């Protein structure tokens, strides 16, 4: 399922506010550790922010597989549509 506009905008806002990345750099093909310059410490904080600010609980193993912004959009979309999981995307 393609990520919704809401998921994309909320993830982008999280990346912009949390890691000071200009919004124009937050494109689907942008690589997290290459184009956007994040590292392993940031990845942990991103995981916590996804839970605290968007309400999706991401397993560490799944975040390790993330390479691009599109991967994050897809991950959040899949978790937010998991039956029984209520996220802040619903609010």
């Amino acid at each position, binding site marked *: 399922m393609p990520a919704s506009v809401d998921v994309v905008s909320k993830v982008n806002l999280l990346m912009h506010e949390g*890691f*000071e990345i200009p919004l124009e750099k937050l494109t689907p093909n942008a690589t997290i550790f290459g184009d956007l*310059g994040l*590292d*392993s*410490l*940031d*990845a*942990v*904080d991103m995981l*916590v922010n996804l*839970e*605290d600010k968007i309400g999706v609980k991401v397993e560490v193993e799944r975040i390790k597989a993330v390479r691009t912004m599109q991967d994050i959009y897809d991950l959040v979309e899949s978790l937010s549509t998991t039956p029984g999981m209520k996220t802040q995307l619903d609010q």
Partner: protein
Amino acid sequence: MSDATNVYITGMGAISSLGINVPSMFTALLENKSGVKHYPDWAKYNGLHSHVGGPAPEYDIMKVPRTARRTMSRMSEMSVLATLEAMGQADLQAGAKKSTPRIALCMGSTTGSPENLELYFKKLIERGGPEGQMGTTFFKVMNHSVVANVAAALEFKGPVFSPSSACATSAQAMILGWELLQSGLYDIVIAGGADELHYTSAAVFDIVMAASRNYNDSTQRSPRPFDIKRDGLVVAEGAAVVVMESESSMQKRGARPLARFDGGAYLCDASHMSQSSRPAMVEVMTMALERARRKSSEIGYVNAHATGTVQGDQEEAQAIGDVFGKQIPVSSLKGHFGHSLAACGTLEAIACVEMMRRDVLLPTRNLHEVDPACAHVFHLQEARKTSVRTIMSNNFAFGGMNTSVVLSFMGG
């Protein structure tokens, strides 16, 4: 002491409750301003009676890259800015491409960031484990967070260490720096300390009835060092840093000396964790004079640690009287700044250097009626225009940590 072992201060930087740099701080001191403010919100904390603190003014840390900034609490942010100010005055460049083994960074704090310690443990307890902890939090609460973050921000690749002795931290850092420079192993030591304002820091003193609690509605009347109506200290925040340099390094670089660090001493009285000791204070001041190769008669002013506590101020006034008699002017700057804990030793040393450079001695703010128990010295109750060449500055801390330093101004 031979010229080869002379140590000079060639740069100074500070953020305090009175300003975001040394010039603004000293202007505020000359205007007899107070950095103390009311924290009515602290009333919500059960058992906390002191609702006053000395916050630093807003500062701009955004010039530091995010990857360095993300692991900083306020104490590290302020330390970076104070270090940059000091290095700028000393004409030292940040961002070394290679290691600098003869330049050391020596800075500390009382604890890791109290704000982040609270957040860390609150979440840990709420969640029953480390789930949900940020990856960057621990780097704000390490015992050496301040100096590690300063090194990272400056890309400093030399020796780094972090003394920690609560309110004597930065005084001890400077004395350690002086000792290291005397050893000949280093050319430059960048020394100082920092702490950030948080209600848990006020609580430490409040619990042992050493924090001011009767002036919550008239904040600028407290603290009141040596005054008959003093009721405790006011916790403040800040960072203070000096560049200390051997004479040979200074001459080689063509650096300008601001003052000479004649020497200092630190001793633990090893008798009580919280109570001050007059004999121990006498001992450390005497030892500092000896190490600085100065006589008590050569000291023109004593900058007291005096925080505004009943017992500590009394012991210190009596100890200063024992060493210097009643002729030498004495004041404490805690009435202006509040008590900036790990920062205060270097902060007050910087103020002392500025006093000598500007031919003025600052008074103890809020000292209106000297407590007879503190009447053993000549208290400065108003600023005095006078030329002083040599100053002693005291700092004492929980754990029986006593320090004293001697600074001289060479003119110019």
